[in-house]
């Protein structure tokens, strides 16, 4: 059975991620203890809410360095993906984990489009990756976000919402999903299953 550690740091949708992984038969450990990260097989960084608040929670709990040093597969979900980048413009602006180059910005789109980007959008895979095995062009994923990651060499899959939305990113052993795989029906389950199958 594949085992996965999910960071529970007071700024995440931890239960829904945990349940989704359990539906796939994984053994899930929730933790906020940096010591648990060091021996984790795989690590998930969930996140909802504001970037500055999430970073302050990670710092208070002493998790920042442990996440940065983690050498095995790491998956950031939603805000968790945004935190992988260098910085975010959200609020007053905040330095984030700095594991993928680039800056997270506010949506600069047609004001007729509602923000947050909330709902199901299609995925377009731009680069093959083990995390995206079995994902078909046009598969649907559930997004909820008001800020958008920079599109660049890390982008594995995109969505479109008035602009390009990097939907799945990767830099070395760090992956991110802007959408919620735990709430994205079949495609989401497939991505989580692929994550559980990555060599740890």
């Amino acid at each position, binding site marked *: 059975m594949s085992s996965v550690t999910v960071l529970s740091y007071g700024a995440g*949708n931890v239960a829904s991620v945990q349940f989704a992984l359990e539906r796939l038969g994984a053994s899930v450990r929730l933790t906020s203890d940096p010591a648990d990260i060091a021996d984790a097989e795989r690590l998930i960084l969930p996140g*909802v809410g504001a970037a500055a608040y999430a970073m302050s929670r990670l710092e208070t709990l002493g998790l920042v360095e442990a996440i940065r040093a983690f050498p095995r597969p790491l998956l950031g979900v939603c*805000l968790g993906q945004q935190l992988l980048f260098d910085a975010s413009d959200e609020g007053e602006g905040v330095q984030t984990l700095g594991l993928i180059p680039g800056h997270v910005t506010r949506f600069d789109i047609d004001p007729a489009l*509602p923000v*947050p*980007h909330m709902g*199901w959008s299609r995925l377009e895979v731009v680069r093959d990756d083990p995390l995206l095995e079995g994902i078909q062009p046009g598969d649907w994923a559930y997004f*909820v*976000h008001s800020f958008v990651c920079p599109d660049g060499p890390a982008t594995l899959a995109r969505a479109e919402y008035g602009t390009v939305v990097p939907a799945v990113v990767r830099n070395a052993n760090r992956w991110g999903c802007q959408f919620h795989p735990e709430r994205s029906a*079949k495609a989401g389950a497939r991505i989580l299953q692929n994550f559980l199958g990555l060599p740890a």
Partner: protein
Amino acid sequence: MTARRIIPCLDVRDGRVVKGVRFKDHVDMGDASELAARYRDQGADELVFYDITASPEGRTLDYDWVSDIARLLDIPFCVAGGIRSVDQAARCLDHGADKVSINSPALERPDLIGEMSDRFGAQCVVLGVDSKRAGDDWVVHQYTGDPTASRGAGRRTLDWIVEAQGLGAGEIVLNCMDEDGVRRGYDIAQLQATRACLTIPLVASGGAGAADHFRDVFQQADVSGALAASVFHSGVLAIPDLKRQLEGDGIEVRR
């Protein structure tokens, strides 16, 4: 772009789904978990669970029940009913809900919207608004879960939604009470007026009785989602058929 969302709403009392007409005379429609699983499998894009007795009875949702639903679903869901504080909302989210919807407590104390939004992000904070025609305008009602307590909130609907958006609501569900449960179609004029005031997503509620009603509300009022209850619970309209028809009408839906 996003697909237009089809959102079955489950009014829940003691784990059973009930349905009334214009918020009254409730009839049992089946077990909540079973219906939720059925809608998930049929392609519902999101579910809303509304504990209709929580608010009138002065209590909030059963958190273990929220967890049971969260285990079952691989689509997003929103919970509502008796949520009056940031801590209660936090517990719903901690137990696996994706969003919480507040209604009367936000009217009593609008700052609750901002407090929730600051803590969880706007995307988790849905404002439910029960709205009724008043001459050529619309006004907000509160405590609508209990016919004996239901009354006007003394506010114009359009003023209230704009204020709520400014306070940090992430989505508005506008329930047009004049149409609720009567299946004559959504209140297009009211939804158009509401959409024009908002930059956040708007979900239509109240009045769905046929596939054409969904088409009309998406095409004419540009809402992000359409919520319905009795038309799905009663079997009048199956979600796969509805989506096929909407797709035929050129409306993007998730299939």
